[in-house]
């Protein structure tokens, strides 16, 4: 079996890479696929917290690389879903503790026995980023409809484009607030896609449920009633090749408001 290695990256910090990794990973595992999540954010690990696995980590990726344990020993199984496991980052080391080749080797080994290897990339474009993308053949770029996040995403997309091994780069637009978009106070999905010009994988609405789910260490995809959870489940399906329509966040009212806005502008000009 040769699984798919997908890196989840963004450039800017705090846009939801780790939340996305945890949720897509969990959703894919729920669909019955074998998934490994790798946290490559050495020194600032968090994926374990989001999965509620922080107390179970014995070995980390650095232990594997420095051969203090077998790769299999370092994989922590998820509490609920045996299909999902985590390879945690070392908290006491920094990004220079591993190099790109070592990470690629780990990805290559893991994809032999898993359907998906999801690599949670650290923020930035330095060593940590280079390490994280080393073994990947696909990328998900996470961004929010904010200028700084989009600018950084654009930079990341440029870097990913120079790497031949990565054959697919798709966009995940996180923390979308339909209310603000309606009032023209936030860039719309179309605006962002128009600027970054990569295929859209999914849209996640801003959801306070993310906070409580993080508090509990329980990815929001497990909450059947959450809109963000639904959006992540859809993304997992699209990753599997299914065609799922994007969640309709714009109510008809949005169009009316837009037209009104146009008239308001015309009036101002006259």
């Amino acid at each position, binding site marked *: 079996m040769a699984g798919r290695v997908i890196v989840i990256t963004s450039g800017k910090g705090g846009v939801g890479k780790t939340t996305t990794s945890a949720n897509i990973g969990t959703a894919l595992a729920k669909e019955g696929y074998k998934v490994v999540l790798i946290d490559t954010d050495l020194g600032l690990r968090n994926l374990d917290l989001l999965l509620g696995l922080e107390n179970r980590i014995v070995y980390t990726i650095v232990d594997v690389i420095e051969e203090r344990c077998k790769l299999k020993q370092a994989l922590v199984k998820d509490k609920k879903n045996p299909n999902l496991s985590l390879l945690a980052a070392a908290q006491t080391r920094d990004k220079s503790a591993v190099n790109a080749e070592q990470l690629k080797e780990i990805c290559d080994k893991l994809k032999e026995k898993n359907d998906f290897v999801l690599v949670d990339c650290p923020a930035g474009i330095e060593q940590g980023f280079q390490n994280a993308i080393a073994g990947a053949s696909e990328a998900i770029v996470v961004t929010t409809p904010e200028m700084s996040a989009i600018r950084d995403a654009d930079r990341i997309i*440029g870097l990913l484009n120079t790497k031949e091994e990565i054959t697919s780069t798709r966009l995940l637009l996180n923390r979308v607030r339909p209310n603000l978009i309606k009032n023209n106070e936030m860039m719309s999905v179309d605006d962002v896609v128009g600027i970054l010009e990569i295929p859209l994988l999914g849209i996640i609405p801003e959801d306070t449920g993310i906070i409580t789910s993080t508090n509990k260490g329980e990815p929001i995809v497990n909450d059947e009633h959450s809109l963000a959870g639904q959006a992540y489940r859809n993304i997992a399906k699209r990753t599997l090749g299914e065609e799922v329509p994007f969640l309709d966040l714009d109510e008809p009212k949005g169009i009316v408001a837009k037209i009104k806005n146009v008239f308001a502008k015309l009036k101002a000009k006259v």
Partner: protein
Amino acid sequence: MGLLTDFYNTVAKFFRPQEEIVDEASKSVATNRLKLVLMQDRTNLTPKILEQMRGELVDLLSKYLEMDKELLELNFEQEGDQVALMLSIPVIRAKDEEEIEKAIAEAAEKKAEEAVAEDEGSEEEETEETNEDSESENEDLEEEVAEAETVEESEVSEEIESVSEDMEVDANSEPVPTKTNSVKKVEKDLKESTKV
């Protein structure tokens, strides 16, 4: 002045919000700022270079048109893989043939003077020195710009020159197909004229 009426129609087509509209949605402010900054990120065209390019375009176009230099807008826009240079010039009036010839002659004279000054070596008048300085700077700029695989100024200038000439002859001069790959088109938005 049918020429200007035609251009006025073009205005309506490409009308963009101006500064005096205070309640412009913050979203479009963000989109526009972002587009500009990304263009700079992607091409290494710094604001300084853009400003210089703008200045040279103003000089060139001044030969043919009387325009509101303060309101001239120079922007890049992305269309698919291609980048378009959008130039928006509020034209006050088109110059007549005589004036144009005079301006061209003046420019040629200036150029000749510069060439002479260069030949003569280091002892020039202050004004000539400035001219030479700015010219060598321009050469640097051209190299840099070409390196960034975007717009090579001289070609842009050619394009614009041809546009301007068209305007004299034919009022229907619309977006002009360009020879360069990077500059897809140079569109001219003509805004309100004071002497229609």
